[in-house]
């Protein structure tokens, strides 16, 4: 099927999140680039993913890893040329891989020409493109997001002798979406990339577009109206393209971002992710089932986006104080691992490099309702470097082999944009793609196989979910259904063997076929279905009436 013909493609997608800078350096300057990424598309194809999400690659002073954009209409010269990007896009499409790019709507870099003009004079035509104030007392009900770095959402600009509004770092002034010219310009930016062929946008920090006095300046109706207008334009001019919302909010607050199927196609399910880690540590399904029970229904054309780890800290904003304390104590006892309200660590170190737990977490990621996103390197169990500042410890170069610079770059090591992981456990000599390709039972090969199973049926991407609540709370069990197809998923969250009795009477007469080995299990009868599960084991069973 041609790529844009299936308008619900994102429901079946397995997304791979990668920063161009981190993946492969083709010209030996120590920085990953588009040609390097293009070289590795076949690796991604073999892994089984069918979409890549590229983090910001625009010109930027890189004070926030590219989320401080200084020019929306081209690419950062470190990563190649616009033509290089076009070539990558075409190569990805040739392989059936869709490309999702970042679009930071909320703010620009303070180095963006728009802001330079805006600050230059109060009479400048672009003055009103940003949110200016003579005082720093407006919008007092608004929280500060980067608590470790900022003390206010207002910053003083000595050039124009006014305060400007910023929800993130002070070098990232917020655009003024009350200005129609800004809204029009940002659509033009999106149109530019859509016309080039990008398949989707991950829209960054969308809850914060509009400010209103007396509110917390998040999730405002006016913000939704702007987003709906962008979606309307997208559907009208570029059907089959997709918008993915980054809105770190509670499920009930997230729900409006789907609208009536007329706002975002997908949104990250932020509250679920920390609860998966919590459930695993507690050996109790409660945090997971509880948050999914609180998750409202979304329109049929919409989809949740699920992830275990990403380029940011493991955010603990959407948990209670008690849960946050627990997560810190369990996963970040070393305080240097903590950042803002989160934990800046990768998947494997978070799970003590325990292969069983890594597999279980990925198993849940692939089987819970939503589109899974794999963060680059997690498929081989890459580690992190907490000695690097901010979130840079989880943004180190991809480890391709045990050779020079881990196969990432031919540059001198001191010229790399960031040092490779070199410790004995996670360092590139021990953890790399080449080595894992050669090992039948490596994590990489296991990931390929689980992705293959996941993609063998549409039920995981599109099916409904019905939780079973066996009396054993260490077992998380659910049935995914789509039409006549049903898949039973049973996860043992415990580090010890467990027995569980499942009430499957509704499926009486079905036999269970374990999906990875295709082996049959006994037929479901009137009695509770007894399963014994090894530590952190999980099963996916196709329910089949014979």
């Amino acid at each position, binding site marked *: 099927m041609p790529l844009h013909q299936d308008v619900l493609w994102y429901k079946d997608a397995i997304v791979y999140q990668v920063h161009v800078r981190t993946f492969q350096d083709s010209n030996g300057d120590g920085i990953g680039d588009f040609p390097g990424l293009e070289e590795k598309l076949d690796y991604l194809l073999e892994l089984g993913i069918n979409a890549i999400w590229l983090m910001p690659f625009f010109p930027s002073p890189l004070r926030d890893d590219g989320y401080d954009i200084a020019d929306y209409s081209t690419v950062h010269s470190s990563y190649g040329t616009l033509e290089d990007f076009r070539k990558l896009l075409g190569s990805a499409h040739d392989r059936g891989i869709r490309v999702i790019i970042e679009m930071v709507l909320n703010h620009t870099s303070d180095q963006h020409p728009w802001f330079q003009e805006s600050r230059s004079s109060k009479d400048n035509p672009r003055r009103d493109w940003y949110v200016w104030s003579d005082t720093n007392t407006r919008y007092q009900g608004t929280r500060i997001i980067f608590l470790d770095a900022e003390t206010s959402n207002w910053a003083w600009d000595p050039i124009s002798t006014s305060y400007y509004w910023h929800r993130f770092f002070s070098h990232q002034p917020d655009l003024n979406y009350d200005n129609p010219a800004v809204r029009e310009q940002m659509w033009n930016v999106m149109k530019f990339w859509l016309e080039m062929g990008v398949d989707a946008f991950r829209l960054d920090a969308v809850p914060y577009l509009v400010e209103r006095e007396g509110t917390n300046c998040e999730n405002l109706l006016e913000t939704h109206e702007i987003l709906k207008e962008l979606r309307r334009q997208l559907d009208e001019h570029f059907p089959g393209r997709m918008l993915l919302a980054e809105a770190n909010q509670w499920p009930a607050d997230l729900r409006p971002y789907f609208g009536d199927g007329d706002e975002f196609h997908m949104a990250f399910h932020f509250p679920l992710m920390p609860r998966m880690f919590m459930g695993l540590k507690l*050996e109790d*399904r*409660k945090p997971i089932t509880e948050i999914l029970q609180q998750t409202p229904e979304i329109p049929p054309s919409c989809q949740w986006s699920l992830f275990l780890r990403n380029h940011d800290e493991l955010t603990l904003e959407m948990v209670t104080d008690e*849960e946050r304390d627990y997560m810190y104590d369990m996963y970040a006892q070393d305080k240097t691992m903590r950042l803002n309200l989160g934990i800046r660590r990768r998947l494997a170190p978070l799970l003590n490099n325990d292969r069983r737990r890594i597999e279980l977490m990925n198993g849940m990621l692939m089987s819970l309702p939503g589109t899974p996103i794999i963060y680059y390197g997690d498929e081989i169990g890459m580690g992190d470097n907490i000695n690097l500042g901010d979130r840079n410890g989880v943004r180190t170069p991809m480890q391709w082999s045990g050779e020079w610079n881990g196969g990432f770059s031919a540059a001198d090591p001191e010229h790399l944009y960031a040092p490779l992981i070199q410790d004995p456990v996670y360092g590139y000599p021990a953890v790399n793609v080449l080595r894992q390709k050669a090992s039948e039972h490596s994590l990489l090969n296991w990931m390929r196989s689980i992705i293959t199973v996941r993609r063998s049926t549409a039920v995981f991407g599109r099916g409904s979910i019905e939780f079973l609540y*066996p009396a*054993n709370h260490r077992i998380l069990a659910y049935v995914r259904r789509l039409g006549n197809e049903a898949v039973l998923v049973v996860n043992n969250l415990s580090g010890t063997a*467990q027995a569980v009795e499942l009430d499957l009477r509704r499926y009486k007469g079905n036999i269970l076929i374990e999906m990875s080995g295709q082996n049959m299990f006994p037929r479901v009868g009137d009695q509770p279905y007894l399963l014994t599960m090894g530590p952190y084991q999980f099963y996916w069973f196709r329910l089949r009436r014979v």
Partner: protein
Amino acid sequence: METKLAEETFLTDDFLRQLINVGEVDILVGLPTHNNAKTIGSIVHTIQSGILQCFPRERAVIINADGGSRDGSTELVTGASIDDVRPASNLYALRTLHAISTQYASSPASGVALRTILAAAELLRAKACVVLSPESANIEPEWLAKLLHPVRRDGFDLVTPTYRRHKFEGLLITNLLYPMVRALYGVGIREAYTPEFGFSSRLGSHFLAQNAWNDGTGGTGVELRFALAAIAGGYRICQSFLGEKDHIERHAADLVPALRQTVGTLFSALEPDFPVWSTVAGSRPVPTTGADQEVLLEPLRVNRKRLREMFSTGVAELESVFESILSPSTLAELQRIARQGEEEFHYSGELWVKTVYEFAAAYQRSVISRDHIIQALAPIFRGRAFTFLMENRDASAEDVENNIEGLCLEFERLKPYLLQMWKSRE
């Protein structure tokens, strides 16, 4: 291994299935019940609040061992939802909190209930356990912390409570159980016989393995046996102050069952524990968190006259029984004071201690039916209670404590008298 198999056989399949689902726990709360529907719902909610407040991260379970309730007690335990607690208390549960219930086959018996709880604790590898009374109307969430923290944090094996009591409440404890246990075993546990206590897994397993569960008593006084087993086994013991204790009013007719549960249990234990208590001299206090005890002084109406009359009548009517239990001099002295009028009546501490020790020796020798010996103590105890009430009628809290301490020392001073009687039999 045989013991373990026996425990598993003793538990029903359904209960075992529930235990499998609960899995390993950190905290186990045992709740024996029998027709406690009036109180049990609120008690379970208090327990849930206590767990959420004091042990939010621990794996916890409430185990209800029910002696055949027909008033829905078990349903109230298993149906109590954490959501009922949450809105009022703003508490949040990180984990699943299980509450499971089993009914044992025999009639209500505290021994069977405790055995069930201990077996469950062992199978679930509970690190710290607490047993709570289904009748504790004034239980507070903090009780869980007070009874469990010493086990979890400080490595104690048994945590017994102390309470704020009226000076005339618990006369059997202050006049017999406390001083005698202290004198004989050398450990000053104020409430060795208590329906609420905390304990470690190792003590629970020890008691489960060593106790003779099928002695036909249904486990009468098992809580006291548990405490004595802890002392005899050299386990670490402490006390924790719980505050005021509401209690269900007992009638005079309840005295004999109370004597069976306390004095009968203590006397029974003396024989197997002889190697332990016979070598103990003096006593040591037990580490206590909070107050040792607190005494309330407000006026309390007690029918003292009836106490003395029952003593005098008993001494007269049971003369032939007492002749086989007591020494001639002790009996003569009891008969003398039985004839005294209310004003001059005085049952001294020394005479009381001698009486009790002679009863203990008679119990050991089984001079008559052991149960008859215990029953015969009832009128005698009433005489002693009368004197205690009179002596402390206007006493301050400090005076009352001093008097109790004096009695304890009397029990310690006369311990050789008991040893002499005991050894003369051997």
